């Protein structure tokens, strides 16, 4: 893979060319097969930061091209030996040319999506600036996904920042359209940080905080299913991506990596950003209330507030179909949590799931506390702050509860 950046009109253009052994079919770090759509994309920064450290440009490009790179990656300017080594060790990919020295920074920014998890991170770090990624159309790829309202979300995040007095940088990019299949989206989950990477020097960033929570970090959430993932290659500090970001002087930080979505929801709903929290990507005047994400998050809100489920979605709707099947489910820990707490669950679309899971408040109580190893992997400059917040607001799991995390998925396999 050969990568080059060009700058013009306040926009950074990324173009890449496949080596002979590269292919337009590839794999995301989480194992999902991906198909390339096109080999160019752009990142629009609100103002041109001028000279950008080559490691930052290289890593931003790597978050886009990694799935399709088989043997080597050649950047258009020399990267530090540290970053080259991280890519070599993490992926077995030869990266170059090598030269120059690594960078560092001191501040921590939040990759802010507007959802409950990033709002929880924001509640924990009230003075950290936001960087928001906004999807825009690609000039070469037809947009067949206009129901995805990145513009609405960006406006909401802008208002959130203004009303809460936060520093916000919104970065617009079409990089998701480099992915043809399964559909446009981040080629690697880390591509959401492309803008933060390009702005890291200007904002003096030494870390970027994400809202990835216990399920995503430790329980193999999303496209992983039901297993304890201490070596999660995407989000572990010592994983391939964690080391690559650290080498570029922008540490991955997961302030809510040790707590479940129940806790992040509780923190978000108790925070000053409460009114601005929005996880739905479709709704225009408020959440659509009909997509799968709205259903899942409403379920979590209901379980946190211990009230009946408020939804018009019925069991025959496609978004509710998976809850009519037996487990496993993605993010199953929260389904168990909700089934044990939402009153009248037997009259909801989750009735069948609840019958299968047999969860109780006792069996899911561990999801109300913080998994201590998640604090230990937070980089030193921010660790004690997160630890103090968790101790004051959430509390830590005891050994038995921590064992629930570490044996996640084993019981189901044994039974």
């Amino acid at each position, binding site marked *: 893979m050969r990568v080059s950046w060009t700058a013009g009109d306040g926009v950074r253009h990324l173009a890449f060319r496949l080596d002979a052994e590269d292919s337009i079919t590839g794999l995301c770090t989480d194992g999902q097969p991906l198909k390339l759509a096109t080999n160019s994309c752009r990142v629009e920064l609100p103002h041109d930061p001028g000279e950008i450290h080559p490691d930052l440009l290289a890593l931003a490009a790597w978050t886009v091209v990694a799935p399709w790179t088989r043997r080597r990656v050649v950047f258009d300017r020399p990267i530090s030996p540290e970053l080259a080594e991280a890519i070599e060790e993490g*992926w077995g990919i030869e990266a170059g040319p090598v030269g120059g020295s690594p960078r560092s920074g001191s501040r921590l920014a939040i990759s802010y999506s507007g959802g409950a998890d990033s709002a929880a991170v924001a509640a924990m770090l009230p003075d950290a600036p936001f960087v928001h990624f906004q999807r825009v159309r690609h000039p070469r790829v037809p947009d067949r996904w206009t129901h995805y309202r990145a513009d609405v979300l960006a406006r909401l995040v802008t208002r959130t920042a203004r009303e809460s007095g936060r520093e916000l940088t919104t970065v617009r990019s079409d990089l998701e359209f480099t992915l043809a299949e399964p559909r446009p989206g981040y080629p690697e989950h880390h591509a959401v940080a492309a803008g933060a990477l390009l702005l890291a020097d200007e904002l003096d960033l030494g870390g970027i905080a994400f809202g990835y929570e216990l399920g995503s970090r430790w329980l193999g959430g999303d496209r992983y299913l039901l297993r304890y993932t201490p070596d999660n290659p995407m989000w572990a500090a010592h994983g391939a991506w964690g080391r690559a970001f650290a080498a570029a002087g922008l540490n991955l930080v997961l302030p809510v990596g040790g707590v479940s979505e129940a806790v992040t929801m509780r923190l978000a709903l108790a925070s000053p950003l409460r009114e601005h929290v929005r996880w739905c990507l479709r709704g225009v005047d408020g959440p659509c209330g009909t997509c799968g994400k709205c259903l899942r998050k409403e379920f979590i809100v209901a379980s946190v507030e211990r009230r009946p489920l408020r939804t018009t979605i019925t069991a025959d709707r496609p978004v509710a179909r998976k809850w009519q099947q037996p487990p496993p489910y993605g993010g199953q820990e929260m389904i168990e949590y909700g089934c044990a707490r939402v009153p009248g669950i037997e009259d909801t679309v989750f009735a069948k799931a609840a019958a299968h899971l047999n969860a109780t408040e006792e069996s899911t109580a561990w999801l109300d506390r913080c998994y201590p190893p998640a604090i230990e992997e937070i980089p030193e400059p921010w660790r004690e702050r997160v630890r103090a917040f968790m101790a004051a607001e959430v509390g830590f799991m005891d050994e038995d509860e921590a064992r629930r995390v570490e044996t996640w998925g084993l019981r189901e396999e044994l039974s």
Partner: protein
Amino acid sequence: MVRLVKRALVPARLRRMIRGWFDSRYISRADHRQDIKDALWEVQTLGREVAVLRAETDRLRKEVDRLRARPAASGVRVDEARAARWDDAHRLAQETAAALDRVLQNEVLLWQAVDRAAGDGGPSDGRALPERALPSGGAA
């Protein structure tokens, strides 16, 4: 109750006293009459309101019919031929978008072939290489 008292052989004074006692506790005939009149008036008022609402419903129904009919008058009614054209345009848009996907992918592959022919196609220059494994989480 009053009739019952009448039938019994009760001294007039006592009868009057009892009647007075009852009258002081129960609504008088005149009041009953007034109550019935009031109720009747209420019923008539409600009847008039229902009539007004029914007229309003009829008016709205007519308005809906009128609005339904209006596109036909202004010439954008979707007849069969027009619907067929729109379906066709939709199909064409989808097929064009899918075709463009393939064109873009072919462009990527074409550049890959050009680079290979120019001897700039990477370290192996076309020799088969094993697929790389997923990145590992631990210090591999």
